């Protein structure tokens, strides 16, 4: 017996997915009013002043009233301004008669293609200006733009700007076009337009604070550092006015690290700075294997040496790769394979 009772909605075939929910402007306005009202109620409940109730106070109040043991912070109860909760969406792109406003609507990615058109228009403008200058025999300005201090917008930032999904290919084409535009000698004319798509990168990557030296009872300056590599964790204490003795977990390095390569790694920061016989070191290390422990102590000692040394030398150490934590760890084994990369032996039958 076949079920014959079908509704008209089910009978319609070839209906596309409804897509993300579209919020109208009135809905967002109402949400904002409700949020502000709720904020004042919450302030009253907590006994605070409703006028000066900031977002941090709201977060603390909600965490107090609705304690949650969930690990994911996004899953816990939260009360935020509606513009942060509801993603920014494009308003309806067509008028009452059904005709779209933008001429590129039917391409599907109207903002992306209109952006490409605009950028290419600027490119042609710059070329025309260049030709005019050549016709008048004037010298072309060639001021080199500082490439190191700025970066292009990332794909996610561009998507947010255009309110449209982009593919990797689209994004790379756009960046290539921008680079071509910047490479022209007279690109300074369109500097305003280019600046919309470039971001400042902090010039010095020295965001880390260097700790000052500490002094122990005998008046000898010392400094501590921590390092890790794979599963090994190490702490190192570097003393000034030393003879170059290095102790690891209570034993001398010659006994702890019989392999030459590990001892070379321990001495690497000292040799790089030229301070081989001037410091004493006492370190503790646990976990990992022989090479991982050596790498962890190397990082710890380099971090400790930062306090003894000028800023320029710290920058040199960073460029030599002594101050970066090595992110390489053992790759996991995957199901259906024998190891992380090795597949099972292929048998024909």
């Amino acid at each position, binding site marked *: 017996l076949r079920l014959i009772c079908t509704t008209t909605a089910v009978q319609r075939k070839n209906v596309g997915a409804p897509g993300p929910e579209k919020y109208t402007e009135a809905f967002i306005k109402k949400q904002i009013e409700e949020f502000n009202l709720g904020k004042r109620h919450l302030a009253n409940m907590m006994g605070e002043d409703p006028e000066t109730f900031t977002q941090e106070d709201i977060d603390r109040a909600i965490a107090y009233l609705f304690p949650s043991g969930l690990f994911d912070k996004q899953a816990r109860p939260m009360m935020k301004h509606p513009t942060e909760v509801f993603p920014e969406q494009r308003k309806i792109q067509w008028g009452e008669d059904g005709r779209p406003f933008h001429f590129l609507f039917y391409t599907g990615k109207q903002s992306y293609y209109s952006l490409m058109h605009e950028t290419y228009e600027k490119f042609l403008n710059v070329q025309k200006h260049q030709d005019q200058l050549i016709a008048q025999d004037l010298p072309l300005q060639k001021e080199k733009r500082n490439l190191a*201090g700025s970066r292009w917008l990332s794909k996610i930032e561009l998507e947010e700007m255009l309110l449209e999904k982009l593919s*990797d290919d689209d994004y790379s084409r756009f960046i290539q076009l921008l680079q071509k535009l910047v490479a022209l000698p007279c690109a300074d004319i369109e500097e305003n337009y280019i600046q919309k798509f470039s971001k400042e990168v902090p010039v010095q990557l020295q965001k880390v604070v260097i700790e000052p030296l500490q002094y122990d009872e005998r008046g000898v300056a010392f400094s501590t550092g921590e390092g890790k590599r794979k599963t090994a964790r190490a702490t190192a204490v570097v003393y000034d006015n030393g003879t170059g003795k290095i102790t690891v977990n209570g034993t001398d390095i010659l006994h702890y690290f019989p392999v030459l390569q590990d001892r070379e790694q321990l001495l*690497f920061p000292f*040799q790089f700075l030229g301070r081989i016989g001037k410091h004493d070191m006492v370190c503790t290390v646990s976990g990992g294997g022989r090479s991982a422990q050596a790498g962890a102590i190397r990082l710890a000692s380099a971090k400790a040496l930062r306090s003894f040394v000028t800023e320029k030398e710290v920058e040199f150490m960073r460029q*030599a790769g002594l101050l970066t934590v090595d992110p390489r760890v053992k790759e996991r084994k995957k199901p259906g*394979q024998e190891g992380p990369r090795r597949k099972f032996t292929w048998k*024909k039958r």
Partner: protein
Amino acid sequence: SRHSTCTGLQPPFSCSCRIMPVRWSRYNPSYLEPEVKKESYQKPLEELTEEEREQMELKAVRPIKAAPPTLSSSVFSDPMISKFTNMMMKSGNKVLARSLMSQTLEAIKRKQLEKYHKAPENEKETIECNPYVIFHQALKNCQPIIGLSNITKGGKTYQVPVPLTDNRKRFLAMKWLITECRENKHRRTMMPEKLSQELLLAFNNEGPVIKKKHVLHKMAEANRAYAHFRWW
């Protein structure tokens, strides 16, 4: 029969590079290689060329990868020797490979010193005693200039002469040396002895590895007619 399922590997971080690398690394693509040599940091600003200045500015802004355990700023660490040691290594036994390498260099030094002490006064200056210099020169002599690659056209496979990159040349030279030493030696001779022998022969442009290089060159010369099959 068992199907070996190959799950599509995605890197855990978001890659902002345009070409997806076949071998991915745990570092973000914006990380630069570390520069370990002390001398490059002691040059004063005026001596640097334009490119070097740009490179320095770029390095000040970008993060740098951690230096690998085989690399160090001491005079004894040489990237070419490390590469050769890694190629000699079997099943991750770096300790053994490194000891073999140091024994080889010692053997070279001993042989050269013997020759030096036996030679008459006027020839003493021509004998090279530094094993690192001998190693580098021998590798350089073994590197082929042109290689052959198999190109299938119209059902038949031809050996087409093709230019080689620096990395490939170095790799081939090292590979030939190691295979030569592993296969064509008497059961009782130790690897360092045989390697030192081969390196000294290669230093003087003699020996089986140099012959192999010449054979490859002759084959490439013989197949000159197919050079236009190459499209890259």
